[in-house]
């Protein structure tokens, strides 16, 4: 039932708004609303009950194992939320003067420094609101760099076929054309194809390493050399930074510009779709182009913002007020609790969990997409064989996993592996949870052999059975309208 269906004319949560309606008679009649918006009219209790009940229809990290590959669904420490919600932080206006901002600016400055250290980059801007905006900022900086050198012919961005969809979409938004580079059968970028693709038109390459197929590209130095020699720059998609935190740094691999997803590696909440934060890091030659604002510590030992006036070559502003500050604070708090040692442990245990789960699933007879390889913090199982022999596909297995109380891994991404499950357990899951997942996978396969319909019709135990996506698109209904409007 929608909140609108609980609505009754004249019902109100009256304590929640000013008690009286102040006079607004000076607003010209012609510019005023003719009738009230059709928002629900409910009591506070009704709203609280409705949204509490809705929340209970979600799987979440706090309630379920959520091994969604490429998304790093690890525990989001509660302290990060409660401390970022201290009244002083919540009340601060984005245009507050620096005199009333030194506390938060100290946090942001230290976060910039910590991110520099873990990535090996020369400078960081916290401005991008999510990974995709970080990508856009990153490729725009690459473009600004080439343009500043008068090198205007570099309009092609190389993107491996395994890359996340945001990579090519971001490259296009920055005015590049996209050329796909194939992935070899061992999971590494096809280096011969890459060498054939680079040239004077190459602006750069957008690379995820460890890649979206769950392996560390062993040829990274050769890739860097080849792209650099052709005059291009290397962009690092940091979605998988969790796998290498404190072990190897993008800056040392030869990347010129990177983004990080703080909502993955630094455990800020995913919030049912967001918010995120996608800071970018750059090598020295790209620093002038960083998106603004940037926080610096002055000789006066006070913190200052750098904006358009200080950074005339900046690619500019990406949101009105400099990014998702509350998320940056949460990441800062998380980083301070981990410390250097804790960060290293993150990648170690994320990798341990992934490799353990990979070993157990292999032993149980599931087919790995890259059986010869170590898993990074994630790996791919392909259900090609099951789909062919049992008629049960990846989507069916994903839905059946929900019945067993596991959120499904990422399905059908990356696109190059058929019937794939991209599985990322993260470091915060205990061994028992991984064993339980293996158990569920084994039982589902047994069901697929004995009673495939059970799997194909899953889920069975959730409030709803399988939903009809085709109907949603064909009989489009994306907003409730009051009855009068429908007539």
């Amino acid at each position, binding site marked *: 039932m929608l909140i609108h269906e609980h609505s009754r004319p004249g019902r109100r949560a009256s304590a929640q708004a000013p008690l009286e309606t102040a006079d607004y008679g000076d607003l010209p009649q012609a510019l005023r609303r003719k009738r009230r*918006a059709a928002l629900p009219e409910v009591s506070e209790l009704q709203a609280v009950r409705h949204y509490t009940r809705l929340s209970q229809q979600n799987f979440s990290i706090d309630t379920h194992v959520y091994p969604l590959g490429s998304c790093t669904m690890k525990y989001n420490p509660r302290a990060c939320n409660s*401390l970022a*919600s201290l009244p002083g932080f919540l009340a601060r206006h*984005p245009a507050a*003067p620096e005199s009333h901002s030194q506390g938060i600016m100290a946090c942001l400055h230290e976060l910039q420094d910590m991110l520099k250290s873990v990535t090996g980059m020369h400078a960081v801007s916290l401005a991008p609101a999510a990974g995709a905006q970080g990508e856009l900022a990153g490729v725009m900086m690459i473009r600004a760099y080439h343009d500043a050198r008068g090198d205007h012919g570099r309009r092609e961005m190389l993107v491996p076929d395994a890359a996340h969809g945001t990579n090519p979409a971001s490259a296009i938004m920055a005015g590049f054309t996209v050329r796909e580079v194939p992935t070899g059968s061992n999971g590494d970028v096809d280096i011969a194809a890459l060498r054939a693709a680079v040239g004077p038109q190459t602006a750069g390459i957008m690379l995820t390493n460890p890649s979206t197929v769950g392996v560390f590209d062993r040829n990274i130095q050769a890739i860097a050399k080849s792209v650099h020699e052709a005059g291009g720059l290397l962009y690092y998609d940091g979605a998988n930074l969790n796998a290498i935190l404190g072990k190897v740094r993008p800056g040392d691999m030869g990347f010129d510009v990177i983004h990080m997803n703080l909502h993955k590696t630094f455990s800020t909440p*995913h919030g*049912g779709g967001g918010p995120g934060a996608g800071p970018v890091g750059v090598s020295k030659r790209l620093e002038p182009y960083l998106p603004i604002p940037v926080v610096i510590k002055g000789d006066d030992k006070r913190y200052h913002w750098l904006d358009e006036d200080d950074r005339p070559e900046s690619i500019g502003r990406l949101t009105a007020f400099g990014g998702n500050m509350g998320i940056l604070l949460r990441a800062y708090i998380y980083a301070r609790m981990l410390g250097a040692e804790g960060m290293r442990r993150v990648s170690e245990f994320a990798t341990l969990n992934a490799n353990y789960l990979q070993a157990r699933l292999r032993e149980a007879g599931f087919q790995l997409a890259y059986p010869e390889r170590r898993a990074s913090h994630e790996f791919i199982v392909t259900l090609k064989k099951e789909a062919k022999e049992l008629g049960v596909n990846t989507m069916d297995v994903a839905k059946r996993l929900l019945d067993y109380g596991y959120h499904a891994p990422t*399905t059908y991404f990356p696109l190059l592996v058929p019937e794939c499950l991209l599985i990322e357990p993260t470091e915060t899951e205990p061994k028992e949870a991984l064993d339980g997942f293996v158990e569920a996978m084994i039982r589902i396969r047994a069901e697929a052999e004995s009673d495939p319909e059970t799997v194909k019709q899953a889920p069975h135990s959730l409030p709803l059975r399988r939903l009809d996506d085709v109907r949603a698109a064909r009989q489009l209904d994306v907003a409730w309208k009051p009855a009068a409007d429908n007539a």
Partner: protein
Amino acid sequence: MPFIPHTDADIAGMLDAIGVDNIDALFDEIPKELRATALDGVPAGLSEMEVTQLLQARARADGEPTCFIGAGAYDHHIPAAVWQIATRGEFYSAYTPYQAEASQGTLQVLYEFQSMMTALTGLDVSNASLYDGASALAEAVLMAVRSNRKVKQPRVLMPRTVHPFYRRTVASIVQHQGVELIEVDFDARSGQTSVEHCEAVADEPFAALVVPQPNVFGVLEDVDALTDWAQARDALVIGVVNPVALALLSPPGDWGQVGADIACGEGQPLGMPLASGGPYLGFLCCKQAFIRQLPGRIAGKTEDLEGKVGYTLTLQAREQHIRRSKATSNICTNQGLLVTAATIHMAILGAEGLERVAAACHANTARLAQQLCAVPGVEPIFSAPAFHERALRLPAPTETVLAALAEQDILGGFDLGREYPELGSALLVCATERRTDPEITAYREALASAVALANAA
């Protein structure tokens, strides 16, 4: 080990199952010479208690000033229930509802949010959020250029009365997509963008006109005239609106003869704390005809196998994970949690509650402007009616005055002079429903002495 549950026995058993001796061996595919060990810039870890003490001190350091700044972010009361529910783990720690059956809570919230935003804006459809108001305007501009079938020139009229940070954001995001942004000046007396000003820069066909309501000065634009004028020239109209103001003001869907085509804006006034500028949420609504060009997630109603109503992400062929380089936008992660907060906020307040909030802000700001203008030399800059913000001229340099006010823990407003030098010493002030009469009086007194001090110096 913070947040890592493994016992020594677990580790031993797991390594054994993998067939390696130690965890380090799991990194053996990474070239040795690349492997780093030191994290010099990262201090040692802190306990939750220690980090609490640190953050409390940092939060205190920023004081508790009284805020009279608006300029795109507004200090409204937020019902206690909003964030208590939004931060329930089931909302807080879920992700994009890819598995619809396990995400009905989030999906229904998105559908309700879309319903509420279409009701507020008077348009047919809404997406499920973009990053913030400014980036939403950038997407609206790109969408309008793609959607206009009659005018193929990617030229967009952008009034200078649109918030300067929004204009800059749009300029950076669209800079490589061949879109030409044409500035439209405003009337120095009224503070409005007039049709004449638009005419002056519209020699050539343009795909869209952006119409802010209220505009950055708080001034109300003649939205009907602007809309009709632009649409008569085959352009689309993009409204940039404040959702709280929409409780009182004509919604974009009602502008002119046939309504604006697209509306976008900042959702922060709907239950989001100021929080230094984010996370907020960008909303984007449009007429049905343009839905396939609408970027971002959209939740749609459907049925399950047994005919029960449910919700799922729909029209995904617009999005990057399906369409890759041909997607409407690169956006993936959006502002879902803020959508949840906004939806609960709107449900609790309802249209009448929002109207009361809007009216109270409007009346408070009128009172504030009247009081401040009692200080000799302070005067309103514009003559046209305004909603909940006022541009004032000061008889002393704005920067000096603001610094003196800040010393008394009063954040006096947004310095307009930097963005609009022709206005001279100009200050944009706002008093939301949270500002009390004693606070307003204290501001007037502090302003009087700040002005006197500045002029004495």
